[in-house]
């Protein structure tokens, strides 16, 4: 039986997919996941999910959004200034990063990381 493994680097961060393991039951899956995915990189928590329980639909079966012009829902479209409030500038930075990632065809995992980085940037900026 295949179990998909999701790793959380530190408390408060997101669990992101990092691989899978063979195991006969959940307990063993957790043990193997620890050995394979929790030993080298800093890890705060791991999730294991039976692979067959994961539903999937891909771009061959359906047409996803994100290909038509949706510029009306991006902050960058509106040419008012964003720098008067740090949280608005931060939101726009995150959107710009996501847009760049979309163009470069990066994976969802990288996107999640970028969003998290944006969040930290906001925290620092908030004291202003």
């Amino acid at each position, binding site marked *: 039986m295949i179990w998909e493994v999701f790793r959380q680097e530190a*408390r*408060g961060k*997101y669990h992101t997919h990092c691989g899978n393991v063979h195991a006969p039951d959940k307990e063993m899956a957790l043990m193997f996941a620890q050995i394979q995915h929790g030993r080298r990189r800093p890890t705060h*928590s791991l999730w294991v999910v039976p692979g067959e329980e994961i539903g999937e639909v891909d771009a061959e079966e359906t047409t996803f959004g994100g290909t038509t012009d*949706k510029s*009306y*829902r*991006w*902050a960058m*479209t*509106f*040419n*008012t200034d*964003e720098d*008067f*409030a*740090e*949280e*608005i*500038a*931060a*939101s*726009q930075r*995150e*959107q710009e990063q*996501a847009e760049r990632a979309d163009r470069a065809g990066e994976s969802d995992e990288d996107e999640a990381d970028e*969003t*998290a980085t*944006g*969040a930290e940037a*906001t*925290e620092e900026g*908030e004291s202003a």
Partner: protein
Amino acid sequence: MRVTMDIGTVEERAGPRQFGPKDDMPEEYRKAATRMIQFHANSEIMGAYLERPFIRQAPSLDRKLAFSAKVQDEIGHGQLLYRAAENLGIKTRKQMLDELANGEGKFLNCFHYPMDHWWETPMIGFFVDGAAMRRQATLKNTSWEPYAHAMDKICFEEGFHIKHGESILRELATGSRKEQELVQEAFDEWWPRILQFFGPTDDQSTHHDFASAVGLKTMGNDELRQAFLNAYLPKARKYGLEIPEYPRIHEHNDGRYEVVEDDLDWNEFWQVAKNDFEPGVAQIDSRKAAREAVAWVRESMETPSAGSSAGGVPGAAD
């Protein structure tokens, strides 16, 4: 064996994203967090209903698209937040949605007032959303991790909402004389409510002390209102809006603003807060009616085999 964390430990450990569904939090924490997140979720939903008519009333295709995207975002924020609240084990999503429908669920003061005209939309889209964004950015550091995670996605999306709101404000403020007058009228009407957005001063706020001691809140009402005025008062002036004489706002030499609290209508505020304000009750009821009209959609998802005959004649939200 998991032992429920005592309040002392909670206060000691309180910090950004410190507690999650795996922690056995004391009931007092879980109740306080539920109260706060449910209020926030309800506000997203009621705000979306207030803006929904402007998908139709928007004067151009661009504005229609932006308004429909925004309303969709806000409903999504409500759902994210109900999930974050549900994780606390005090109330289910269904309970919270029922409470909003039957008038028990509380939400932001500004969303109790009807919005009838296009020129009023920047009052919500720029000023109220801007105030909310100020507050939400601080909540990325709340101690309840699922709440902070919801805030990551909400803040990501919200930048567009506020810039869109400002873009409408600029268009009206630089438009015809008539448009300028109308936007000033809207501002005169909405400004006192916007000042009350952050609630009463901290010393009068009932829930502030505990929420901040356990890290749910990271900034007080007073500080947030200050931060809001610092950024948004200059904006109002920039667009030629005249700040109403009352409520009086004193500007101190150190750049600090002081709102004369007695100039604000706190009777109305508390009436609003208790869901007793008539226009607000009408808004709660109209959302309830929309929710009931589309109950058949939810039912057919739960039991597809029942078909559309189960709920009688299928209704529409409006």
